[in-house]
């Protein structure tokens, strides 16, 4: 039987009433959990895992998968409306999404997020269907050296990509890296920079940092500026206003496809993750996109690339999970636990020994993705009314969400303190035009770079040559340096031209 027949057979599994219901409930729950700051996909899936034990394995995993990608849709909502990313990959979505909200185009941003999520998800699923196990094999080619090179590429782009002043962007990115080194060093196990505090030994938790730097700092801004939290044109915002025009749709279509493919690819690499995926997609768009100069000031393309890439990456991480039994992300690891509980053993044999299950899952993804889009569009009007709330009322609501969200992630009061401090620091940095998103992105990427780099160096016994002798990492590094030098050369050319003219 070829993949096509298996898929069709899978559809007949997925379209039974029970399984369709499971996919629908999963998608809806996922959207809610995703929009909650402080609870990411991994936590949501593991909290809801016990619920699925009463179902049969196929219905159970279909529902869990629904929660997983529903979560990717939901993360964008709070990022757009409140500037508090609901989960990590949505940090990139917030860059343009919140700017759009300030321009009074929140509806458009949310709709774009939905469409792009759908496009990215579909690309991921189609790739998974056609190539499945093959994808995982390509992923294996990325060892520590290659992953280190890839993350180095992303990291070097952070500073000058975001913010108006590249020097300030760089300073912010470096600050993020230094913050990430607090706590136990992932490669050797020793504690560092913890200032003798037990709370800091485990490192600074990411979620309170995000909530503080994005959400709480905004409360401070609203209060200090004492001007009304102004959203123009709120009253006419309706679902019809939110729909994209054909022109706008065309504008986001190709960027979404591009970043979907890229995000999907990043998704099945071991140890890269959806955040790296959406950020690399953003970098790509900033380099080659039509609207590259306006990106970051509130462009629907910015929302589209980020959302498309993180959905594609989420689906991508299923490839190594199903075909090798190796989870590509923390969420797929929880799913692995579920699979084992149902007596399935993910590994090279799963596709042969349980085709019903595997293809049922894959085809349920097509279905679940459509459901997510429908559910996402259906909640739009409710989300938009949220914007009509005045600043006076909004401030305490955001405060409560920030507090509860930062506690919920690690059940720790210390994290609430981290949130407040991060908010204050981000507020004063922002006042002096230091952007705060580089801090966060560098904070996520730096530990991965460090661990992969040190693994690569230990395999090579300390020789730096390892990064250049492997073709894949060599190519990535050459690209990195080209990207780094490109603006410099551009400036030099402009400079000599200007000199010639004068």
């Amino acid at each position, binding site marked *: 039987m070829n993949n096509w027949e298996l898929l069709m057979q899978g559809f007949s599994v997925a379209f039974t009433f029970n399984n369709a219901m499971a996919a629908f409930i999963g998608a809806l729950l996922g959207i809610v959990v995703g929009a909650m700051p402080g609870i990411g996909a991994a*936590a949501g899936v*593991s*909290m809801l*895992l*016990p619920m699925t*034990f009463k179902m049969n394995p196929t219905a159970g995993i279909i529902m869990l998968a629904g929660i997983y990608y529903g979560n990717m849709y939901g993360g964008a909502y709070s990022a757009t409306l409140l500037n508090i990313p609901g989960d990590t990959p949505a940090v990139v979505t917030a860059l343009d999404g919140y700017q759009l909200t300030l321009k009074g185009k929140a509806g458009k941003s949310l709709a774009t997020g939905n469409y792009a999520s759908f496009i990215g998800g579909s690309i991921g699923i189609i790739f998974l269907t056609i190539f499945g196990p093959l994808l995982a094999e390509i992923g*294996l*080619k*990325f*060892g*520590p*050296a290659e992953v280190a090179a890839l993350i180095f590429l992303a990291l070097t782009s952070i500073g000058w990509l975001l913010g108006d002043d590249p020097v300030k962007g760089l300073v912010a990115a470096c600050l993020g890296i230094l913050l990430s080194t607090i*706590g*136990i*060093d*992932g*490669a*050797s*196990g*020793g*504690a560092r920079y913890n200032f003798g505090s*037990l*709370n800091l*030994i*485990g*490192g600074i938790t990411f979620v309170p940092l995000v909530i503080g730097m994005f959400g709480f700092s905004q409360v401070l801004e609203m209060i200090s500026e004492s001007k009304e939290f102004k959203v123009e044109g709120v009253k006419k915002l309706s679902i019809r206003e939110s729909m994209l025009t054909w022109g706008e749709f065309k504008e986001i279509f190709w960027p979404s496809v591009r970043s979907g493919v890229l995000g999907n690819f990043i998704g099945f690499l*071991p*140890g890269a993750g959806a955040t790296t995926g959406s950020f690399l997609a953003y970098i790509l768009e900033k380099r080659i996109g039509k609207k590259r100069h306006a990106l970051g000031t509130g462009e629907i393309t910015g929302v589209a690339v980020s959302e498309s890439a993180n959905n594609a990456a989420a689906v991508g991480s299923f490839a*190594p999970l199903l075909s*090798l*039994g*190796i*989870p590509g992300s*923390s969420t*797929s*690891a*929880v799913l*692995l*636990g*579920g699979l*084992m*509980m149902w*007596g399935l*053993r*993910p*590994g*090279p*044999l*799963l596709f042969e020994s349980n085709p019903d299950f595997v293809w049922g899952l894959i085809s349920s993804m097509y279905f679940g993705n459509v459901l997510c889009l429908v559910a996402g569009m259906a909640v739009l009007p409710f989300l938009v009314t949220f914007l009509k709330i005045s600043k006076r009322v909004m401030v305490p609501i955001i405060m409560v969400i920030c507090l509860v969200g930062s506690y919920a992630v690690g*059940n*720790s009061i*210390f994290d609430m303190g981290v949130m407040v401090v991060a908010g204050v620091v981000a507020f004063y940095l922002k006042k002096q035009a230091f952007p705060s998103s580089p801090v966060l992105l560098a904070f996520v990427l730096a530990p991965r770079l460090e*661990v992969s780099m*040190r*693994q690569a*160096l*230990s*395999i090579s*016994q300390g020789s730096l040559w390892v990064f250049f002798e492997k073709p894949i990492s060599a190519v990535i590094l050459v690209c990195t340096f080209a990207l780094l030098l490109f603006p410099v050369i551009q400036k030099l050319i402009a400079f000599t031209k200007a000199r010639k003219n004068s």
Partner: protein
Amino acid sequence: MKKLFVVLLCVLALGGVLWAQGSAETAKYPDRGIEFVIPGSAGGGSDILGRTITDIIQRYKLVDQTITVVNKGGGASAVSHGYVNAKSDVDYYLLTCNSANQLSMHVNKSMSPKGPFTPIANMALDDILLVSRAGGKFPDWASVEKAIKANPSSLTVGLADDLDAMALALLEEKTGTKFNPSAYFASSGEVATALLGGHMDLAILNPVECVGLVEGGRLIAIGSFAPKAMAAPFEKTPTFTALGHPEVVMQMSRSVIGPAGMSREAQLFWSDVLQKVSETEEWKVGYIQKNVLEGQYLNADDFTKFYAESEKMLLDFAKKLGIL
């Protein structure tokens, strides 16, 4: 008037919820959710142990409260130990433990200043395997031995924790070889990935961590540290004893522990719950048999004794091999 009514209604509703929750509350431990901390990233041996236990507890409703599994991988279990040590409500945390974590506590000095962890129950014994890639240069131990003796330090071995390092040190000492040990990976899942991708030559893994890949014909176990021949699908794997190195024998325990200073009540509660877990069919067949382990339940008191003994043995051994 209407508004006042609405307000009144809301207050009543809130009051009702408060009251209902208050009366439903009992003083019996555990009165709230538990966090089960895994010193390793998802997909590794510790993760599978923790998740299986949690799933069985929830399936049989052995505990009323929810148990949330939290992965804190990295730094050879130091990250998770640091995480738990920072908590003050010690009765609400459980950790998986194994001989490797026990050793790491001393190597990385990651024990709490409040004292040692609280032993709760031993669950199983696990074997250790030397694994290589199928279709690669090393289909058996003889080929590895030949290559490494001709060219010391030329082969890279992936390790996930200190016990793996100790197993390798033991193998090196008794067979007179010298490998290039790779740095610690956050989890055995990463080690397996790097081995599959050809980024290193060999790896030390537990059966549970590679059984799917061995069955699927992607990895070969070329030697086991077990005292006797192993069950399927590792029946073809020779023990190092059979390969002529009778001193290369090592097993590890898989257990559950609590943070330092956990109350006696909590310790006994979980010891009981885990006994019930170890008696279920899911555990015996779905976990022990399927992952080629040896079931060995020890309750809190027996395990405390065993824990102290095995700790001393491990440390002596580690000092002899120069790891500590």
